[in-house]
């Protein structure tokens, strides 16, 4: 059972009622199927009503839902024979970034993604999906490896940002991110970047320069977290809800702004309610995208990639 978010309470109440009626009907042997089906219909309607009218802050909560499928889940669902590759060959291995080779619909591909944990212990081990320079250097290494063996690259973005720490700075966080963006700019194989949860700052973009950017319906993407925006610009970290509305972070907006190419639908109520279906929908969208890209000669691929980023910000609204 997925953890309930505050705004989902009305749905939960209906669901509780339904299960009470079920138990009651069983115990007393009374047929309540009519009442139950009315309530079930109502629950579906309420969920749709809530989920079709989410505020930006509610989207943030869904994108960060602890039970939302993470990179590791999607690797398990979508890739066969996955073998993880560790280390940046310079300093160490960054557990906040997972990468390796696997089969996607029969084709060998390279998969790289930030990996958040699902509980505190896992999150501590994975540093909450906040990468150090070695995470980006591992990603670069795996991308160059993919290029050598002509494998497409799929990147899963799920991070509040790159890690702000002493070691990260000493080892050149800024250089690692810049260099990784450069490597993606010139990589001769298709890159599909998918935002599956939250994507914030250069920390997200460090594995995000794709030929196509896909965003799951309830994922979010921006230059800074709403908390960061509120505390830096307004000196008031309690205004994070307002900041979420202000900076345009939801998938629909990111698509309108010409950054996200496709929005990948999620099961009603979010990916965490039905990870299997979420993975299936995501897999379908990645497969379609890959078909579009595999047909392109490397020169065309690179020219189109250049054009995609070159034109961002030429707002014609």
């Amino acid at each position, binding site marked *: 059972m997925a953890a309930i978010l505050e705004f989902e309470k009305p749905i939960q109440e209906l669901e509780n009622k339904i299960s009470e009626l079920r138990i009651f009907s069983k115990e007393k042997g009374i047929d309540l199927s009519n009442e139950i089906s009315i309530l079930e219909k109502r629950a579906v309607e309420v969920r749709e009503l809530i989920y079709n009218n989410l505020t930006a802050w509610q989207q943030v909560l869904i994108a960060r839902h602890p039970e939302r499928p993470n990179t590791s889940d999607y690797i398990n669902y979508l890739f066969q024979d996955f073998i993880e590759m560790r280390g940046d060959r310079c300093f160490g291995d960054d557990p906040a970034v997972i990468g390796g080779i696997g089969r996607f619909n029969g084709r060998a591909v390279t998969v790289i993604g930030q990996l958040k944990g699902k509980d505190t212990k896992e999150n501590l081990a994975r540093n909450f999906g906040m990468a150090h320079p070695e995470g980006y250097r591992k990603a670069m290494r795996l991308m160059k490896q993919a290029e050598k063996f002509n494998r497409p690259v799929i990147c899963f973005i799920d991070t509040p940002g790159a890690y702000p720490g002493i070691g990260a700075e000493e080892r050149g966080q800024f250089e690692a991110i810049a260099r990784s963006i450069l490597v993606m700019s010139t990589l001769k194989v298709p890159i599909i970047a998918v935002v599956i949860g939250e994507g914030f700052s*250069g920390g997200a973009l460090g594995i995000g320069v794709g030929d196509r950017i896909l965003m799951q319906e309830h994922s979010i993407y921006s230059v800074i977290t709403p908390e960061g925006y509120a505390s830096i610009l307004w000196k008031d970290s309690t205004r994070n809800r307002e900041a979420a509305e202000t900076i345009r972070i939801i998938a629909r907006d990111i698509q309108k702004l010409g950054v996200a190419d496709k929005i990948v639908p999620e099961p009603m109520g979010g990916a965490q309610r039905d990870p299997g279906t979420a993975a299936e929908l995501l897999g379908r969208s990645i497969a379609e995208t890959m078909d579009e890209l595999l047909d392109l000669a490397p020169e065309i691929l690179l020219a189109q990639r250049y054009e995609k980023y070159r034109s961002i*910000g030429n707002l*014609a609204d």
Partner: protein
Amino acid sequence: MVLEAFRKQKQITVQPDAENRDIPEGIWSKCSRCSEVLLNKDLIKNYKVCHKCGFHFRLTVAERIKMILDEGSFREMDANILPVNPFKLADYERKISEARKKSGLNEAVVAGEGTIEGVPVVTAIMDTNFMMGSMGTVVGEKITRAIEAAAAKRKPLIIFAASGGARMQEGILSLMQLAKTVEALARLSEAGQLYISVLTDPTTGGVSASFAALGDVILAEPEAMIGFTGPRVIEQTIRQKLPEGFQRAEFFEQHGFVDKIVPRPQMKETLAKLLKLHLQGE
């Protein structure tokens, strides 16, 4: 709307009076590090470096042009691109107009062509007086155009970075300027052109994590604050005080991310030397 602004580009030179714009008001300045009281006339003569402790004051674009480029050689490009406010934020609109007033600039970067000891270059110079040199759509566009101009005209490129990072008020569009500028640099590099990145105080966030980090040569001014995350955020995160000198230019030189720290009085001759060393083969 923005497209239109971009199309209306004209080549104009920096107004002569603009070059003198930032001589500090009054006759005296106080060094913000050693508190020495300095005669402004002497301070300017000494490249805005404190003669007592060597502290490098931040420069305006006009001052930088004067100190680096041959006299009268600078021709500005894309001067008339005005700031944009894609999400129509009232706060941001206000900040933009304050910044324009304070800096006398249209945006946080000025790009153009000029010569350094006779060697033609394309240059882009950032200015912290305009919203801490932050990079939004227009800064990204101007930097990208400068990179493209260097490639098209086969001239070396020098960018003086001075920025707190990506401009938050333009959200994802600011973030994408990292990719845009770096993609352009990749092409410049393929064209075999020299790019010198000069890191000045401060170079952090999205600017350090994009074009500023990718020079063929990376120079820095003494004690410039450099890094991805600013020291305040790091201190808040790790809940400890950062050591003296952390993230300064000298720190990054030691850790292998800066080729050379160049005190400002030697900057022009160092750049000229580098430029001429790259002319040899041509």
